[in-house]
């Protein structure tokens, strides 16, 4: 009689102690329910492969030459074959046909799109990554050292958050346009400028999370163990504060790609010889009647990528939201 309740007690406590699933399993279980986000993830992984192979096959091992000009073959629609006998042997496209047509100089749109996929994706990733890094560092500093005063005048928190307010005041697209137009044209400038003007949201998110986490026991435990402050911030606090930033960074990649295409439209995007989806699109817009594929192909590519990033971002938001998790 007496041994049975003890026995059940033991099993009960061991059941409650064992975590039902790791956070990753929990995340994956919620995320895979969202079929749109799952499909978009697959598309994005495919696109990453396309982007990397674009870098490899158009610049390192030149299989698809982006710069061959074939004037007799200009404005060939997609899937058309090159005119035999006129185009020199070495200038023929790699696959024996123009998979996505040719542009106003007879350049192979497929090769240019392939090259552009790497450039466009890297603009998106670098810009969003930069804005994430700046936002996380500033937000963590503002949240953790909130009350520490510099020169006994202003607190770190006030300083950083007022600077964030200043940056939020400036009309972003206009500022990007101003700086990009004044700087010498280069894709690195575009990435950096987009990154430097879009970190404010991340900074606020991280600060809010860290303000809430700062008073929790594990931070006290870390302090008691004598961990240095940078370790507490970046190893213990920041990983716990990352989930909203992850969502906004995913959507930030999409926004950066759209911003680049808008800059290209105004003539301040990546300059030749760099092909990006944005500048293929804006070069093609002059020929929208004669060669609609020059607008449709890069337009569709941008649309699909941006949509995929947005849907993955929404999926992440659902999966990382603690309110929606345990259902």
């Amino acid at each position: 009689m007496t041994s049975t309740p003890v026995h059940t007690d033991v099993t009960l406590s061991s059941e409650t102690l064992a975590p039902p699933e790791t956070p990753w399993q929990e995340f994956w279980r919620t995320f895979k329910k969202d079929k749109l986000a799952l499909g978009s993830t697959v598309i994005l992984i495919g696109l990453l492969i396309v982007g990397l192979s674009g870098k490899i096959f158009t610049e390192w091992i030149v299989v698809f030459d982006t710069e061959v000009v074939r004037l007799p073959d200009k404005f060939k629609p997609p899937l058309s074959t090159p005119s035999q006998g006129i185009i020199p042997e070495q200038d023929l496209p790699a696959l024996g046909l123009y998979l996505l047509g040719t542009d106003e100089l007879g350049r192979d749109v497929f090769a240019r799109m392939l090259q552009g996929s790497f450039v466009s994706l890297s603009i998106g990733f670098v810009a969003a990554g930069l804005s994430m890094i700046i936002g996380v560092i500033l937000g963590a500093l503002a949240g953790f050292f909130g009350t520490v005063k510099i020169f006994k005048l202003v607190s770190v928190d006030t300083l950083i958050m007022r600077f964030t307010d200043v940056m939020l005041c400036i009309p972003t697209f206009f500022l990007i346009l101003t700086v990009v137009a004044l700087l010498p044209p280069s894709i690195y400038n575009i990435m950096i400028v987009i990154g430097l003007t879009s970190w404010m949201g991340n900074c606020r998110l991280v600060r809010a999370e860290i303000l809430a986490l700062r008073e929790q026991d594990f931070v006290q435990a870390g302090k008691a163990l004598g961990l240095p402050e940078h370790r507490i911030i970046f190893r213990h606090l920041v990983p716990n504060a990352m989930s909203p930033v992850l969502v906004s960074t995913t959507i930030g990649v999409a926004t950066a790609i759209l911003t680049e295409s808008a800059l290209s439209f105004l003539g301040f995007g990546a300059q030749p010889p760099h092909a990006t989806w944005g500048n293929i699109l804006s070069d093609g817009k002059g020929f929208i009647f004669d060669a609609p594929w020059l607008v449709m192909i890069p337009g569709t590519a941008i649309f699909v990528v941006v949509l995929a990033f947005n849907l993955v971002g929404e999926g992440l938001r659902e999966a990382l939201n603690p309110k929606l998790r345990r259902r």
Partner: protein
Amino acid sequence: MWAFIGRNLVLRIALLFVVSVLIHTIIHIAPGEPSQVDPSNPRMKPEDIAKIRAAFHLDDPLYLQYAYWLTDLLTGELKSFKDNQPVLGKIWRRFLNSLPLFVCTTLLVWTLAFPVGIHAAVTRGSMFDRTSTFLAYAMISFPGFVLAYILILEIVQFFEIPVIGLRTFGMESASSLFKFMDRIWHLVLPAFVGALGGIAVLSRYVRSQMLEVVNQDYIRTARAKGLEEDTVIYRHALRNALLPFITMFGLLLPGLVGGSVIFETIFAWPGLGRLGFEAILSRDFPVILTLNVFGAALTLVGTFVSDVLYAVADPRIRLE
């Protein structure tokens, strides 16, 4: 309340000052100067460039240049580098052109986004909800200018709506009713295209806000009392869901300057965005700087108004 307003105004003016210093520094440190716009012009001799630089105070230290800009702005003497016209007058004229477009776009966005978002939230999971969600994502993800081009091509062929500029050229002698209708017609397409993206974003916000409110306990209570569904949705749920949109309304104002560059370029609409674009092309520093500061001022005014309105609308918030 009044103390809050006063303190806030001082803070915002200080912010505006810092913003203007920051933008001034960015513009002047970045390479590219008014004297270099036309470097291949053989008539530009080094002495001419020196003369231009002296006339625009470009050789003075930065803080002096800033002081010149600020005093000129405050006395209304600020002149454009490009054509020596007063900057404030230029901005005011373009502002009057941008305003009708902005008002129409905003009206379209706010009158269309709310019914779509509310209906999607109330009929969650329905065909309408899924379609509108997908369309909203599609609109957000489509580069706006491509959409504008496609719409221009289709709509011009179908409806013969004018798509370029503010008014038809050569209508000066027509009667005023005619001129008025002409201007309205020119507004239709730019306003509609500009509104599409906004409708997509805002209807998503409305939907998620409504969903949040609809699951609250007091909605269940309202239903349990036996109120009609319309009363529950529009009197009890919508009113509470509306609060966050006061903030969004405040963030609208800066769209007057920055948000319109692309669409004003496509539709050749002589508004503020185009003025800024032209100024950037010709390195017209006073215009660029003043426009940026104007945009920042609009943001500050917008957030200030929304803060105050929030306190008026939500009794739980007290401005201390």
